[in-house]
Each structure stands twice: as C-alpha cells, then as structure tokens.
C-alpha cells in the first residue's frame, strides 16, 4: 500500500514479460488508485416530485436520485469504459461455440435506416417493405438450412430452442401422444437441457461414445415411446461431424420422436450440408453467430426456427407470407400455432443485419466463409503445442491444456493480445480449450494466436496464476464476488 492508503498499481509486466510476438496493454483508467469511478460516484442528484407535478401526489413517487452529468462528461465516461473492453475489431476472438466473426459495418448502416423504424402494430398494407424483407429472410434461411418454413420471432438461440421444443410438443399433442422426454448428448450446450426443462420435459442425458460422437447403442437404449425429441448439434461441440446422422435420425424417427438441430455450429457447414437433408425436423439458426450480426456484449441476437412442411402449421403467430394472389405480403396465424415466444416480432434490427449479410455474401460467399472457418481451425490446431485429442474437426477444435489449468492458461493468453478460447468445456476433454477462430482471421493473425498458445503452454503455473497482467483489471476473485453479492451502486453504500 502507498502512503495514502491506495493500493499500489501493479502493472509490472516485467516479471513475466514475454519479449516476442504480439503483446497487448489494455487501457486502464484509475482515479485515486481505484479504477474509473461509477457514474453515481461522479454525481448524485436528487429531484423532488412536488406540488407542481401534473399528477396528484398519491399517484407519484416522492423523489428520484440519479447522476446529473453533462454530455461531455458522459462521452468521456463511456469512451473510457469502451477502452477497457475488447471486441472483435481489437484482435482475435477464438471463443469456441460462439462464432465471433467480423461484423460488417454496412449492416449497421442498414439497421439504422429510418424506414426500418416502424411500429409492430402497423397495418400490413402500410409496412409491405418490412413484411417483404421478413419473407425474403425466411426464404434465405429455409434454403440455407434445407427447411420448408422459418419463423423469425425467437429473439435468441435459447428462445429458438424453446420455440422448437414447444413445436415438437404441439406436434405430439396433435397426434394424441403424450411424450415426456427430451434426449440430449452430454456434450451439448447447457441451453438444450435448460430449454427442455423449461418446456416441461424430463431430460435424458446421452453419454458420448469414445470417439466423441453419439453412441448409437446408447441412443437406441435411450429413445422410446416417451421420446419427444433428440436435440443435437452437428458438428458437435468437439467440431466433429456426426457421421451416423442418418442412422441417428432413423432411430429417433422410428421411435416416433423428432430430431432437433441446434444451429450454433452451422458456420461449419454452409453450402456443404444442410440440417434438413440430414433428417432434422426442427432447427434454430444463431444469426449472431453464422450470419455475423454483432454479439453486443451478450446480445441482442436472434434465433429463427426452421421446420419441415409437416410442422409448419405449428409455427408462432403471426407468420408472414406472400399473399396467394401475389399482390403483397400478409401476416397470418398458422392453423395450430404454438402462440408467441416474443411480445412482438423478435429482434427485428438484428434480422435486418442478417438479411443484409446473406444478401452480400450469396452462395459463393457463404460457402467460402465455411471453407475458411474450417481451414483456419485446422491450420491453427496444426500450429500449436497443446494436444487436440479428437478429430477430424471442422470450424472448431478442443485442445487440452494438459497439466495446466485451462482457466489459468486462458487468463495468460489475454496478455498476448488475443482473447482466449472457451475453457473447461466440453468436459470430455481434460482442461479443455475450445477454439473457434472463424474465417475472420488471416494466416498472420492465426500465427499470432498460435504463438500465444505456445508461449502460454511453455510457461509455469506461477506465471499463469499471476495472469493477466496487461488487462484493465488484474485477476478477479469471482468466488469472493459471489459470496458477498453487491449488484448495484446502492449496495456499495451499505
């Protein structure tokens, strides 16, 4: 501690400083030894709601206390915060399962068009442009996934899963069947399990085979009269294509169940394989992954759902289509619609961006995106010292940090100017480093990434545990933060 009691800045990258390759020093703003103050620490102004209010006082609150800061002060506050944040344009972002692509700038411009800013309750006749774009995007996505009908309403991937599983439930109910179970491989995304439970199903977890894929025998044992659906990601979270997909589909369909495709890994397959052709009945698309809409620090995304013709009548309402006489577009309620999964029409401005991206790339661009994504993953894996136990993988691979702690290794990678991979998942690989470089990286940047992997692989545990050193904040004690939850600036005053 320094004389005034403020903690000494510990910016001494010299201890473990690498001296080659790309290094990264993130901006770090401090004030009296603490990081950038909160808005509420910069100002707190209370406003009384008094006699001059247009409402009687029994209908109003007494006062409101918020920061009162000028625009220049706010511009500086948030600009500093942005400098303490890392985006795709900052450097490589190879988070496995997340598909952190480059987000084209022009899609931001089209999402900002004033013509896009219409109210969802507008008459169909007055928003023909919006309905046409929706219908065109439904058509694009249907072709890309090999699906007959697509809804754009689900606002995220998990919402797409919820929609798809509810469609499966409605389908079985319409057939007079009471099916209570959803089968999910142990390596699946956590959302799959949570979605099935939320929709009221029992989860049957399927152990992976030794090769990391679906174990057909285990599948045959798991499915039966109670099976509503199997939820599957293909390629799976290890990047492996489920080679037995036709047999898997047959097993599930023979038991009367439906096959659900989790679209998180669709970027591996564009133009090479389509879920509809593999036997999937329902799927969701993650447009913030496959179709390059920005992740926005966690959202908004969009999770359109595609279905076979047989399931189209269960899609959420309203659905959009070209009128029978071709004169325009209309909204309608599908015959056995599951209802709604979003208050209005989903994350519209995200969908506009996705439409623009697909229209820009077309067949050749989409196929090329997948080719480059898969080549990049394979090239990167070939250049790193960590072992990659499962293959052949596609757009992502899961390396093992071996004797190192994967979370510590990831923290250390931050010092090398790259975002680390997803860590410690899937659990089938010890100390997993799940890596998806996407097509957005060139060979030089992949070499930088490989250098970062290898530098970290060669470092000792003490160095990893001390990392990161060059980021805005040092290692954060998350266990301690959870033990004493303080979730607002008001809680800090207590």
């Amino acid at each position, binding site marked *: 501690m320094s004389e005034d009691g403020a903690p000494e800045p510990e910016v001494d990258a010299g201890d473990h400083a690498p001296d080659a390759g790309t290094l990264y020093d993130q901006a770090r703003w401090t004030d009296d030894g603490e990081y950038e103050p909160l808005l509420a620490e910069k100002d707190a102004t209370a406003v009384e709601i008094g006699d001059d209010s247009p409402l009687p006082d029994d209908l109003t609150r007494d006062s*409101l206390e918020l920061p009162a800061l000028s625009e220049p002060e706010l511009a500086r506050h948030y600009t500093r915060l942005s400098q303490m944040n890392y985006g795709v344009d900052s450097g490589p972002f190879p988070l496995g399962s997340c598909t952190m692509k480059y987000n084209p700038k022009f899609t931001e411009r089209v999402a900002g068009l004033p013509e896009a800013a219409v109210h969802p309750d507008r008459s169909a006749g007055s928003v023909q442009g919006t309905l046409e774009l929706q219908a065109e995007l439904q058509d694009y996505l249907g*072709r890309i996934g090999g699906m007959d009908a697509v809804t754009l309403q689900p606002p995220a991937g998990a919402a797409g899963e919820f929609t798809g599983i509810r469609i499966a439930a409605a389908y079985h109910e319409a057939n007079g069947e009471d099916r209570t179970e959803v089968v999910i491989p142990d390596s699946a995304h956590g959302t799959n399990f949570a979605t099935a439970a939320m929709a009221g199903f029992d989860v049957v977890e399927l152990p992976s085979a030794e090769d990391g894929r679906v174990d057909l025998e285990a599948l045959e044992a798991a499915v039966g009269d109670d099976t509503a659906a199997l939820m599957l990601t293909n390629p799976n979270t290890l990047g492996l294509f489920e080679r037995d997909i036709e047999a898997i589909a047959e097993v599930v369909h023979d038991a009367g169940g439906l096959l659900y495709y989790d679209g998180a890994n669709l970027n591996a397959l564009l*133009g090479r394989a389509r879920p509809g052709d593999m036997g999937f009945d329902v799927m969701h698309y993650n447009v913030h992954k496959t179709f390059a809409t920005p992740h*926005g620090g*966690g959202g908004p995304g969009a999770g359109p759902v595609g279905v076979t013709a047989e399931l189209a009548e269960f899609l959420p309402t309203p659905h959009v289509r070209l009128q029978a006489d071709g004169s325009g577009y209309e909204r309608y309620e599908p015959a056995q619609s599951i209802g709604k999964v*979003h208050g209005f029409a989903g994350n519209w401005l995200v969908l506009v961006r996705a439409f623009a991206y697909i229209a820009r790339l077309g067949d050749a661009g989409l196929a090329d995106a997948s080719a480059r994504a898969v080549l990049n993953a394979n090239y990167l894996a070939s250049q790193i010292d960590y072992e990659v136990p499962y293959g052949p993988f596609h757009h992502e691979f899961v390396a093992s940090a071996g004797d190192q702690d994967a979370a510590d290794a990831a923290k250390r990678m931050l010092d090398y100017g790259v975002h680390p991979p997803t860590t410690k998942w899937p659990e089938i690989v010890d100390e997993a480093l799940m890596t998806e470089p996407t097509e957005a990286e060139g060979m030089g940047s992949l070499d930088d990434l490989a250098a970062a992997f290898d530098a970290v692989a060669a470092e000792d545990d003490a160095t990893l545990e001390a990392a990161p050193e060059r980021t805005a904040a040092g290692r954060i004690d998350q266990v301690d933060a959870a033990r004493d939850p303080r979730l607002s600036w008001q809680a800090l005053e207590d």
Partner: protein
Amino acid sequence: MTRRTRGSPYAPGDADDTAAMLDAVGVDGVEDLFDIPDPVRFDGEFGIEPRSERDARRLVERTLGRNDELTEFMGRGHYDHYVPALVDDLASRQEFLTSYTQYQPEVAQGFLQALFEYQSMLVELTGLDVANCSMYDAATALGEAATLSQRVRSVSGDRILVPDRLREGKREVLAAYADGPDLTVESYPTAEGTVDVEGLADALDDDVAMVYAENPTVCGAIEPELGAVGDLADDREALFVLGSDPVALALLERPADVGADVVVGEASALGAGTAYGMGTGLFATREDFLRQVPGRLVGVGEDATDRRAFTLTLQTREQHIRKERATSNICTNQALMALRTAVHVATLGPDGLVDLAEDCVVLARDLAARLDGVSGLRAPVNDRHHFREFQAHTDQPAAAVAADLESEGFAVHVVGEHRIQVCVTDANEPVVDRFVDAMAEVA
C-alpha cells in the same frame, strides 16, 4: 470475364496463404477437411446471388422503402422517445458492439461497469434491491416472473392472475412460459382501464401464485389502486408482479412502496426508439429471490491489486453451469440494448427524466382534450390520468377511421369496433397540430 473478387469479403488471405495453410494441415484441398458422408452432402445451390456492398445496401433500402411513410401515434408496449445522438455514438463503439458476454472479466471491465450501472439505475427506479442485466423484452420478462413465482411462492397454487385487458401478445408469451411448469393463466376484471379491486379480490384465493398488474396499463391509464393490489396479493401470499418502463417509473408510484415483489417491463422505452417491437426486458426483484433470478447479474469483486472490479456473478443459477436445473434457459440477452438504455438515462439525468415523464402525462391529457373537441370523437374513454396514451371512442367504425388516417399520413391503434388508441411522446409531439387536423377530417 472472371471477377477477381470472389468468396467472402470478410475472410482475409490470398491463394498463397491458403496453399501454405493446406500444406501445413497436410491436405490437398479445403474440401478434404469436411468429414461429411456422401448421402448427406449438399451438392445443390441456395440460389442466393452475391452482391457488392453497394448493391446489398440498396436491396435493403429499396425493400424497406416500400413501407409507407406514416407518422405513428402508437404505443401499447412499444414506445418511441427521441434517442440522443450520444446513445448511437457510444453504442456503436466496436469495443462494446462487437464484444462477447463478459466471461473473461479482466478484459471486459468497461461493459461490465456499464451493465452494473444499468442495474443500479433500475434499482433506483423500482426501489427493489436487485435488477438483472436484461431479458429479451417485457413479455418474456413477465414469463420469467411467472416461472420464478412457481419456484418461490409460499402457497401451493398454480394460478397466475393477469388483467383482462392485457395485451394479447404478452398474454400468449406468458402462457408459453407458464405451460412447462403447469401454471394456469387467468384473467381478473378491470374497470376504466385499471384494476377492478373488488373483482380482483373475488378472483383471488390461496391457489394464486402470482398477481400481475401494469402501471401505466396497456391503454395508458395510471393505476390508482396499486397499494390495494399489493395488499391483496400479499394477503394470499401471492407474488405481486408489476409491469412498467423506465420513463413511467421516474414519476409514478415507486414499485417498492406498493409492495411489488418483481418489476418487469420495457427498458427499451429509453435508448432504442421504434424498432418493430424489438425490446429490452426489464427485470428487478427483492433480495429474497436473488438466487432465483433468471439471466445474468453483474457484481462487484476485487482484483489481484485489491481494486474494485466487476464480474458476472452467481452464475450457478445459469444454464451453462446448472443445465436443466437452471433458473432459465436464457443465454444471449439484450446487453447492448441495456447499455443504450443506461446511456439514455444518464443523458437525461434525474431532471430530464422526470421532465420527460411529466411531459408524457401532459401531452396525453392535452391531446385527449383536443380530440374530445373533435366531432365524432370522445376522449379519453377511461376516467383516469394517462401516461403517453389513451383510448378514444369513434362514432364511425374505428377501422375506417384508422384507414382514412393512413391516407392522411398517420397511424393509430384500432382496439375495438368504435375505439382507437393514441400515443403521444416527445417524438411525435411536433406534429400534433397536423394530427388533430387530420382526425377532424376523418372522424
């Protein structure tokens, strides 16, 4: 002529790089990397023609250009307030826009702090202890509140009571969320656009897990009996869930003061503008239910230098850890929209926010009075104070009035055979005179 530019424009590298990379991997061509059995190989085409950036942009412009240019006087859950340029500017910074969920907090302090500040603003606005850093929209936040009520209710009930005038879309989303845990959604009566307290009392029994009310209600009425609603719910040990938005919360009764257990609503009333219904789900609750909160929470911790730092916390509630036992399946949320709301709130400050809220009362009151003076109209229908919007009776069929209004360049809601709903804010206030003239033409 063969075009030299092919493939994805967002994938770096030339043919030499590709050859070197293939060589390093040890394959002859990139297709060798796809381990896809022939029967499921796709050998067709999507039939989507690649376009230049200019052409792709013009395609969207041309398509959306087919929307009629109408000035909207519309609300009912999706509101338009002027969004300051600072919001667009800061939310466009790539460090925010293109970043991921903050699972590596050391390199994402900026976004975490912005979300922590967003949560804090909602704590002030609601008076509740905890706010999460967003759900998809008001309707899904309400659905999540229902599943929370099922987990925490101290009664053994499975009934969810909502106002009979609840927006249909919101009710359908709620029903979807209620279906899994076998909750039943039922209506209680309203009068003059707000809760019929006696009717609610009659509908309540010990089987009720949750009572939902809105302030303002879907027809814009300000609820005069919120405290009574809270008491009734409390008497039956049902959860009291209140729907609102950050502008209304700045002026109307503080939810904590009327006994609200959960507040849900549209945070996108600030920071977003009209976006065809794209929203931001507000979700706040009492500390008692902290471990039952759906979605992400940002908390305070310390880093290795003992400084205060921010991190996602209590993640054991979430799907990526707890799987089928998670509080919700939500993963991707509306983080950037929450940041936009926070910047908008900060830009307004407490004075600006309360001024804006009071304007919403005065603008609605004045416009209702002016429309009431138009022959063929009566407004407001409900004998209540209003916020932003109100319903009006039309002597002529409402659908015909609305259609004629479209020809005059305006859009309103049709909510009954002889009833329209009109919403006025700072966004459309400059053209109120023309709107009233148009109403006089068509009513």
